């Protein structure tokens, strides 16, 4: 069983390396945003698997909170790339000032 977790950790580290390559090379903005998002997912998975690997499954809670935060962070980044603002566009909201 421990071998399975070790193999999963190794696979995750390889995935992290590949995501890293895409985020460094990535020609467009969206490549990089997607790379950061999936790197966050890899972090969540790594923490979860590491919890089981070191015999402390409580880390799973931490991984869940990271997943939520990663989601919110990606939404915020996308809003900034699209609207240059966190609030986004409201209806009949041309220009505030």
């Amino acid at each position, binding site marked *: 069983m421990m071998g399975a977790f*070790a193999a999963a*950790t190794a696979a995750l*580290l390889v995935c992290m*390396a590949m995501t890293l390559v895409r985020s460094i090379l990535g020609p467009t903005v969206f490549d*990089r945003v997607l790379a950061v998002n999936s790197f966050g997912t890899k*972090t969540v998975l790594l923490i979860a698997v590491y919890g089981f690997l070191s015999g402390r499954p409580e880390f799973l809670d931490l991984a869940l909170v990271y997943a939520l935060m990663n989601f919110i*962070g990606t939404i*915020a980044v996308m809003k*900034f790339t699209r609207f240059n*603002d966190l609030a986004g566009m409201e209806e009949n909201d041309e220009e505030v000032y």
Partner: protein
Amino acid sequence: MIDLIHIFLFTFLAIIAIVVIRMRDLFAAVMLMGIFSLLSASLFTVMDAVDVAFTEASVGAGISTILMLATLSLTTSKESTLYQRPRPLALVVVVLTGAALVYATFDMPRYGDAAAPINHHVADYYIARTMDDTGVPNMVTAILASYRGYDTFGETTVIFTACVGVMLLLGGARTFYRWRRREDAGDPEPRP
């Protein structure tokens, strides 16, 4: 296995740091800094500093990235290459400082050393008495919320006040103008 994870994560950190320095596209640099924070958070978790890891993930990968993007939306996202002359003196200073810091770590107790002073200052008292004094099963929670309760309360008050102040400063004017425009459009709404 755990040493292997450490080596891999530290290698990723070093790669990202070098790439961020070399990169001229600031948006990409901000994204890479987000990855840097996530990596640091995983490293802190692997080293059992779970609370530090959580702060790093929320502040480093969350808030800082947003603040940087907000700054970039107000300025341009290309780095100026005006001051790119090589400076050998700066390199020497940086290498010397780094060497001094590495030399200083030789005096530090080993990671997780039970005989280190940090593990014997007040830790023994907390370990022995937490359950009797507070009845909280988690020791870190007991220290933060009970032994240092007033301190945590003060911190929370400061952060709440700062948050309200920033929201009023940044969002207040916008809301005010929105109300005034609605009044001009003949849609009177009570102003607080």
